[in-house]
């Protein structure tokens, strides 16, 4: 309204009320769209969680219950007691932790070297690495299967950890590269003054200051590994070595009708990445702000 007051030749009162009315109508419209949008994004998650808690007879009733009439944990109990679910869960955790370790070590070292150290061919290395982010898993995993098979690395944790690292490392290097650029070099310089070596200033100063970046990389690597179906499906064909995504798909084949178990398994798979991001969102946002 302050604007309208200063424009000569207009009746301030009339225009101001009209403007206000139009503005509140627009706000209401915004909220309607915002809420329907949120429902669209949230509904499938709600629907899965609801089904995981519903008893069998409600799930298989032709009438759709939008809210559960009765809540039960029977689906979860059956899943944890009668299936290989826990084995798959353990496999997924082992592989994800391995991928996180490999990714953090390689991308931090490389990110630092690319930012701080003058090296011939540095730019070329960076470009090829970023370019390799574009290789899709299905292309890499075909020849990998032949190679891994030849050296006996199929159905091993190491084999899958290395394979999934191909998906996480390129982006992580780029992220760490960006991150080290935000760490002022002057702190390291003053350490050098006191006789510290390059190695010492890296571990003592640059690394602790890049912690938010490290956490962002760790979450990213964990999420990619946890999510991976394509590589695990081909490289881990032995039932006892399957990770969650592959295990659950086979599980649906043999239990094609047990939707309670399938959806409670799905809910349990979705929990770790959600928890991780919920607790670490502050770090994650800082990491991505640098990247974008």
């Amino acid at each position, binding site marked *: 309204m302050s*604007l309208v007051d200063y424009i000569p030749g207009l009746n301030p009162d009339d225009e101001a009320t009209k403007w206000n009315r139009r503005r509140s109508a*627009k*706000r209401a419209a915004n*909220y309607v*769209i*915002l809420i329907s*949008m*949120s429902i669209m*994004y*949230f509904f499938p*998650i709600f*629907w*899965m969680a609801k089904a995981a808690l519903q008893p069998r007879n409600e799930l298989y009733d032709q009438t*759709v219950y939008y809210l559960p009439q009765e809540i039960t944990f029977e689906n979860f109990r059956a899943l944890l007691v009668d299936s290989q679910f826990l084995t798959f869960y353990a496999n997924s955790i082992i592989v994800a932790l391995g991928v996180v370790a490999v990714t953090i070590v390689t*991308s931090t*070292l490389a990110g630092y070297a690319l930012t701080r*150290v003058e*090296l011939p061919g540095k*730019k070329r*290395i*960076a*470009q090829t690495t*970023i370019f*390799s982010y*574009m290789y*899709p898993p*299905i*292309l*890499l995993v*075909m*020849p990998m*299967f032949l190679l891994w098979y030849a050296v006996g690395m199929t159905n091993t944790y190491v084999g899958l950890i*290395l394979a999934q690292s191909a998906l996480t*490392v*390129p982006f992580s290097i*780029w992220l760490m*590269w960006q991150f080290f650029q935000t760490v*002022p*070099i*002057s702190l390291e*310089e003053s350490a*050098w003054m006191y006789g510290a*070596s*390059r190695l010492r200033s890296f571990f003592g100063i640059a690394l602790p200051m890049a912690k938010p970046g490290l956490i962002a990389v760790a979450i990213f690597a964990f*999420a990619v590994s*946890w*999510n991976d*179906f*394509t590589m695990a499906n*081909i490289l881990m064909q032995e039932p006892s070595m399957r990770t969650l*995504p592959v295990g*659950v*798909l086979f599980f649906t084949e043999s239990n094609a009708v047990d*939707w309670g178990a*399938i959806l409670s398994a*799905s809910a349990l*798979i*979705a929990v770790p990445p959600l928890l991780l991001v919920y607790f670490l969102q502050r770090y994650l946002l800082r990491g*991505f*702000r640098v990247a974008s």
Partner: protein
Amino acid sequence: MSIARFIDYIPQSVHDRVESDDRIIGTLFLLPVVLLVSFVVFLPVVWAVYNSLFDIGTLNPERNFVALGNYVDLLGADPMFWSSLWKAFYFAVGSTLLQLAVAVPTAVLLNKELRGIAVARAIALLPYLIPTIVVGMMFTWMGHPELGVVSNGLEDIGLTDGPMYFFGSERWAMPALIVANSWKFTAFIVMMVLARLQSIPESHYEAAQMCGASAWRQFRDVTLPNIRNVVLLVLLLRGIWMFNKFDIIWILTRGGPANATTTLPVYIYEIAFTQYRMGTALAASTLLFLLLVVAGVLYLRAFDPASEVET
């Protein structure tokens, strides 16, 4: 920024001492990545190209050199190759456009200062964190012909009579796949566009309002030029990724029914693991890879992500 620089003058000799180790340290620091990327990216790619010249079985070490025979078979005598290539295009273009069409308005809305916007932002990004297998199971359940909420909901409001087979019908399988896939990946585009929108100064909109620009004019003349580049980048990058998508398609439809959703990546998997013709599968992978290289070179030419990170 560099207070230390004002307090202590750093003699050149200190720099010289530190930088004399740099060649060794730089090499040592880059070595793990170079080794890893060689072993898990370059070696497999080279191996794929080399073995695509042979007739080999998937679990059978014997190989016969057939030169370009696999390629000739694929390009000349395999109608499935061409139809799966076309389906991969259909899936990629459909997914990318749908995601973009939903993501840009979502991002514009999420950029507004409304009450509860933080919650709405979190909800919009949530699907991206849901693992693909879970997305697959959710949508199989929701799309179930007799028990699913979509089929029953449509029947309740009178749009259809009788069960709808979304993932099981030749007509609906591909559109249903595109919807399920886009539900997850729209969040990625929302994130990128939102980040760009937040860097547009408020004063640009204020100036537009002063001139009496309508909401649409503000979008067209202020928002759109600012997000143009990120949208183009997303179109290309996401297009490539969607073109190569395997997991969600395999989980939801296995390429079926009647090959209606057999995209090129799915077909490659089938050649290797149901027909056991690894040589041919690698030839198809190589062709897919060549397509990718062309797209990648265009991408690097247009955007040069490496120059972005130079200080």
